[in-house]
């Protein structure tokens, strides 16, 4: 695929939709039964630059948001998301539509987030994160004028949500984010995390239990 055309297509808004009936290249017969994204990815494999741009437009925001909530840092989230889409592009020739495209995409994203969190753990303990956040919240409360009280309450609440999510173990956190924000089925979360469906239910049960306890005072 001519790379220049791939990159130039990336900013386009008038993205073409793949025609399921008129398949081009290998794999298109299989693609008829696949999800829309997998069809696009098979087209990318066959050298269609605009399909890569379409995939990027469709999944950039969910991937960045997921990574942001995982690592809780916008710059890191965007950097990891760049790596996700680079890996998608690099793997295009080996791509086989054996699973849902988003399962594969979020598996890449989750693994990158896990690796980053593991590296980060060495530098920053979870306790210090909690202390820092608490002190920041107190500082904000003291610094702001009473006229912005409602905004402040919202910010403090948001901070507590971030801390509550941040304190969840990595797998529980990923499971909650995929369940809540990506609205994924248990089976898909299981495939992303490489565990059984019942294990996902168990992860979610424990995660929401913690969140309910930590956020109960807002009731």
């Amino acid at each position, binding site marked *: 695929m001519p*790379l*220049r055309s*791939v*990159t*130039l297509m*990336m*900013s386009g808004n008038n993205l073409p939709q793949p025609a399921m009936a008129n398949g081009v290249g290998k794999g298109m017969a299989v693609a008829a039964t696949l999800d829309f994204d997998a069809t696009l990815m098979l087209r990318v494999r066959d050298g269609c630059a605009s399909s890569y741009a379409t995939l*990027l437009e469709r999944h*950039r*925001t969910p991937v*960045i*948001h997921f990574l*942001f*909530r995982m690592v809780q840092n*916008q710059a890191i*989230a*965007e950097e990891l*998301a*760049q790596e996700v*889409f*680079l890996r998608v*592009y*690099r793997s295009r020739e080996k791509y086989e539509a054996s699973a849902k495209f988003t399962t594969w995409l979020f598996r890449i994203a989750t693994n990158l987030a896990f690796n980053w969190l593991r590296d980060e753990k060495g530098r920053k303990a979870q306790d210090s994160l909690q202390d820092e956040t608490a002190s920041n919240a107190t500082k904000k409360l003291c610094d702001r004028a009473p006229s912005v009280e409602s905004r402040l309450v*919202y910010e403090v*609440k*948001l901070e507590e*949500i*971030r801390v509550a*999510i941040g304190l969840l173990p990595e797998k529980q956190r990923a499971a*909650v984010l995929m*369940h*809540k*924000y990506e*609205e994924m089925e*248990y089976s898909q979360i299981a495939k992303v995390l490489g565990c059984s469906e019942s294990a996902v*239910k*168990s992860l*979610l*049960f*424990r995660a*929401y*239990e913690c*969140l*309910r*306890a*930590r*956020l*109960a*005072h*807002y*009731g």
Partner: protein
Amino acid sequence: MKDLRPSCPLHSEEHASLLLDYCARRLDPDRKAALEAHMEHCAACQELRSAQRLVWDSLDSWEASDTGWEFNQRLQERLRQEGRPAWMDSVSTWREGISWKPAVPLAAALALWLMVFPPNGFNSSKPSAPQQPDQLEKVLEDVQMLQQLPLGRR
């Protein structure tokens, strides 16, 4: 922390997805009706539903931002780098390290030298007519070649 330990068998890990799906509005109508009928008489389930809805609403308020165009531009640049063969990088590095500034005076000096001391009697009184354009062409070629030579570094 508030104690939310279950007192209803539905709160077990085994049945957890039922209430989660209910709060996420993913339960099919039949099961939803059955669960709601149960909840009317089960205080523990009512409490759990309220707590779970609170979590759900709290998570809804957590928004994340997106930087579409900037993100695309950076990815575009990285993809361009990816697509470039390795030898191209080494060539561009080599070219970046060369300064062409010293080549200009050197070329001028050579041109002057060739004018003063022509190789085949360029300065002779009766030059053979067909030789002149050839020689001039050669000089120009030489100058051009000199300009392309890597003669110094920045």
